[in-house]
């Protein structure tokens, strides 16, 4: 196969591993070809990482054409409106920022933002003009004002902004003036305040990073940061789609500071928590000197947002970064920087209100990958930093406590009942509530959060209870099957033992002619009684293993019986005296059965009776299975012409079936058998009333129900017999 065929086959696969396997298979032994295609796939992979700056020129034909057909030149000295360009001070994806000199009406230095040549698509133009509208909505000392908006000769817009003199980025400032950890935190608190101002006015910045937070480059007591570049800001306007101008397909933003949702999700679903994330990264960088990704990931490898490695990585807590000496190669981040920060942090641990651990938690909470886990607003972050500075308990530690509470409930869920769990949860909630009522007003929010979490936990407990119920139901039915099986086994062994004992006592014997080949007990055990019309589910007793046990047992039993019996009774012909039971398996049980049939076995307890006895020990009194066995016993008694015994069994089973809702056909059957039992005893009136009762039951059962026609015909048969006897 050619390179392109293999390449195209490989990229059909999702994961890199699968792609590799695919290329390996298709290239076979051709290592050179493999290498060629594999390096292409790696390029392909890189090209599809959004945060990788390897966009191909092939994707930008518009830019190429626009640029080449553009005649305007942007150079220092060029006059745009009332402004003379001085020097380029910033460059974004779509625009350039110049320091420019305003000539009229007053002379002053401004920052002039101009679209890059070739960037004047309708969308970019719309966004560009939206930016100054956004800034105009924000009146805050921390946000540079827009002085002027204009249009160049070539139709492209520009705007002039307040210039931050000799501006440094927030991180540069912190380095230049060797700020302590507290001062760095204060810088971030000040930044938070500005962002909060913007959020309150429905504007999300979406591109917060050091180069967009400037501070005038002179030593100050309380430096005031300035936020610039609202170029990709999002305007939140409920129900207003015009804000989408700023959002369509914006893949701009800076990877290291970009929240995962901004990198992965559509721009329109971004909310203020994205800015919380960026501020968290900034705080991380202010404390440690590097961004979480640089500190935690091997910077030699690219980690795209979509890669598993990214989602698996856990940012190092800032305090750990300072301990780590290994990854100090980031370009903007010298060894000295790290060391100086480390020294500062050493005393920070003592003099600042909170511990380094608390600061770790604040930072990690801000940069949680799941925005639900972050501070929900910038104000929350700001307040927590303030608390940290004041030595008050910080909210970031809170979830730990809650987590433990949750854990506790989960641990005890197994032993306490669900209701118990709920009660405990409620008690703990009220204790928590009481406890926090003594705290400051700011703690209220925390309690609310915890209540919410507790409610969630309660919901979980309820769900868990439902699940437990279902599991209980299932295990109960399983238990029943097992119980019935073990009872059956026990009854069987008792039954066999009794036969064996009888045989040993010499109670079995005399004639052995014409006995059924297999004793009726086995019939009943392996399948319901022949006369039963409605049969229960006896499948579990017909397992091959069980049948085998029965057969073997009967063989042995019969052999024993034969042994016990032959020397004394001596009725076997001489040529059969070496026990026919051993030679012919059929005749062996026959002997045992004969013994039962002959009533020489004094106890006369059938297997069904034993089973019934055992079942009564383990099953509820009115278990349908007991009724089934009662029916069997009743039938047996009828067959052996003991209708009085049958009456006792069957009246009990009728009672049980009457109580059970879903066994109308069983009920009818038992009623009919009972009627027969009465009939055999000559109790005609009882038999008559039982028959009419059965008739009613059959009426309820309806004609379409299974077995109804058989039951009907049995009914008619009995009625005919009754009237003839009368």
């Amino acid at each position, binding site marked *: 196969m050619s390179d*392109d065929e293999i390449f195209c086959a490989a*990229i059909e696969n999702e994961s890199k591993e699968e792609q590799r396997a695919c290329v390996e298979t298709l290239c076979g032994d051709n290592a050179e070809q493999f290498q060629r295609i594999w390096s292409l796939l790696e*390029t392909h992979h890189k*090209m599809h990482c959004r945060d990788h700056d390897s966009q191909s020129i092939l994707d930008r034909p518009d830019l190429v054409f626009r*640029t*080449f057909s*553009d005649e305007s030149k942007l150079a220092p000295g060029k006059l745009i409106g009332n402004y003379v360009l001085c020097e380029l001070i910033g460059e974004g994806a779509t625009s*350039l920022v110049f320091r420019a000199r305003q000539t009229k009406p007053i002379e002053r230095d401004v920052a002039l933002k101009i679209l890059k040549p070739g960037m004047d698509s309708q969308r970019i133009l719309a966004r560009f003009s939206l930016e100054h509208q956004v800034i105009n909505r924000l009146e805050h000392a921390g946000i540079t004002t827009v002085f002027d908006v204009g249009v160049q000769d070539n*139709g492209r817009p520009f705007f002039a902004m307040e210039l931050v003199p000799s501006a440094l980025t927030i991180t540069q400032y912190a380095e230049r003036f060797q700020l302590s950890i507290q001062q760095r935190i204060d810088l971030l608190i000040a930044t938070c305040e500005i962002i909060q101002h913007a959020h309150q006015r429905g504007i999300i910045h979406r591109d917060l990073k050091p180069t967009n937070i400037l501070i005038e480059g002179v030593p100050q007591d309380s430096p005031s940061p300035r936020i610039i570049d609202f170029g990709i800001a999002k305007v939140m306007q409920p129900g207003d789609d015009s804000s989408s101008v700023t959002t369509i397909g914006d893949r701009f933003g800076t990877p290291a500071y970009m929240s995962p949702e901004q990198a992965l999700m559509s721009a329109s679903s971004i909310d203020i928590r994205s800015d919380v994330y960026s501020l968290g990264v900034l705080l991380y960088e202010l404390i440690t000197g590097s961004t979480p990704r640089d500190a935690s990931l091997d910077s030699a490898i690219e980690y795209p947002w979509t890669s598993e490695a990214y989602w698996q990585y856990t940012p190092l807590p800032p305090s750990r970064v300072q301990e780590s000496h290994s990854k100090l190669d980031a370009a903007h981040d010298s060894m000295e920087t790290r060391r100086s920060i480390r020294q500062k942090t050493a005393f920070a641990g003592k003099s600042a209100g909170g511990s380094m651990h608390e600061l770790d938690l604040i930072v990690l909470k801000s940069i949680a990958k799941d925005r639900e886990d972050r501070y929900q607003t910038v104000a929350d972050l700001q307040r927590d930093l303030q608390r940290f500075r004041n030595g008050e308990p910080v909210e970031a530690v809170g979830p730990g406590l809650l987590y433990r509470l949750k854990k506790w409930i989960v641990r005890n869920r197994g032993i306490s009942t669900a209701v118990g769990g709920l009660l405990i949860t409620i008690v703990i909630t009220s204790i928590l509530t009481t406890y926090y009522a003594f705290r400051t007003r700011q703690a209220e929010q925390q309690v609310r959060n915890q209540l919410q979490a507790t409610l969630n936990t309660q919901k979980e407990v309820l769900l868990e209870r439902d699940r437990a119920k279902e599991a209980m139901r299932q295990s109960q039915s399983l238990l029943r099957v097992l119980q019935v099986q073990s009872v059956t086994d026990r009854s069987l062994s008792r039954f066999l033992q009794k036969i064996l004992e009888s045989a040993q006592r010499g109670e079995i014997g005399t004639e052995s002619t014409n006995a059924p080949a297999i004793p009726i007990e086995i019939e009943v055990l392996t399948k319901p009684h022949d006369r039963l019309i409605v049969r229960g589910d006896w499948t579990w007793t017909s397992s091959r293993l069980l049948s085998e046990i029965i057969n073997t047992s009967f063989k042995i039993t019969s052999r024993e019986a034969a042994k016990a019996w032959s020397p004394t009774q001596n009725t076997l012909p001489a040529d059969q005296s070496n026990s026919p039971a051993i030679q012919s398996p059929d005749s062996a049980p026959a002997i045992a059965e004969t013994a039962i049939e002959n009533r020489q076995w004094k106890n006369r307890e059938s297997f069904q009776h034993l089973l019934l006895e055992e079942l009564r020990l383990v099953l509820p009194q009115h278990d349908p299975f007991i009724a089934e066995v009662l029916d069997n016993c009743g039938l047996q008694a009828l067959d052996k012409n003991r209708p009085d015994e049958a009456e006792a069994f069957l009246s009990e089973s009728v009672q049980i079936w009457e109580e059970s809702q879903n066994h109308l056909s069983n009920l009818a059957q038992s009623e009919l058998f009972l009627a027969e039992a009465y009939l055999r005893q000559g109790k005609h009136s009882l038999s008559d009333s039982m028959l009419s009762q059965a008739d009613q039951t059959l009426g309820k059962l309806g004609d379409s129900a299974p077995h109804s026609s058989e039951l009907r015909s049995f009914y008619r048969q009995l009625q005919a017999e009754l009237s003839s006897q009368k």
Partner: protein
Amino acid sequence: MTNSITQYLEAVRRGEPGASQALLEKVYDSLRQIAANRLGREHGREVLQPTELVHEAWLRLGGNEVTGWENRFHFFSAAAEAMRRTLIDNARRKQSSKRGGAQSKQYVLSDDDLVTLPLADELLDLDDALLDMEKTYPIHVQVVKLKFYAGMTMAEIAEVTNVSVATTERYWVFAKTWLHHRMSSTEDA
């Protein structure tokens, strides 16, 4: 003039000597006229897209009456080639006049080609890479030219090259990756 384009195309299809060159010049002239008209009319405010240019040329030259995908293919190939040459000439001119052959790619703030210089380099690199690729993958290169220089959509390319859209997409992805790989590896070296 409008109905003669078919004759040019037929000549190319029959493989007449000089026919390709004649077609190219015809298309090139048309493109230049359209560009000049539009730029004059709109005061340079809106820069023409290659897509618009090529499609307008197609209409002006009577492309609607052209039948058969092969003819359409020859026309758009010629258009792409004309656009490519324009761009390359432009890039070469800028490069030689402003820099005297220096290889550095850094921004020179005093230079009035502040933004366009790196693009000129990239464009020339791309052209080298395309020439290279053409030796092994001529069809892929054709797709790139139609897409990049003539601004055609995948569906249009599929139509004039008489293959499925899916195949065209595959050609494009492979070529893009190949070219990018080639360009980034020469950059490193």
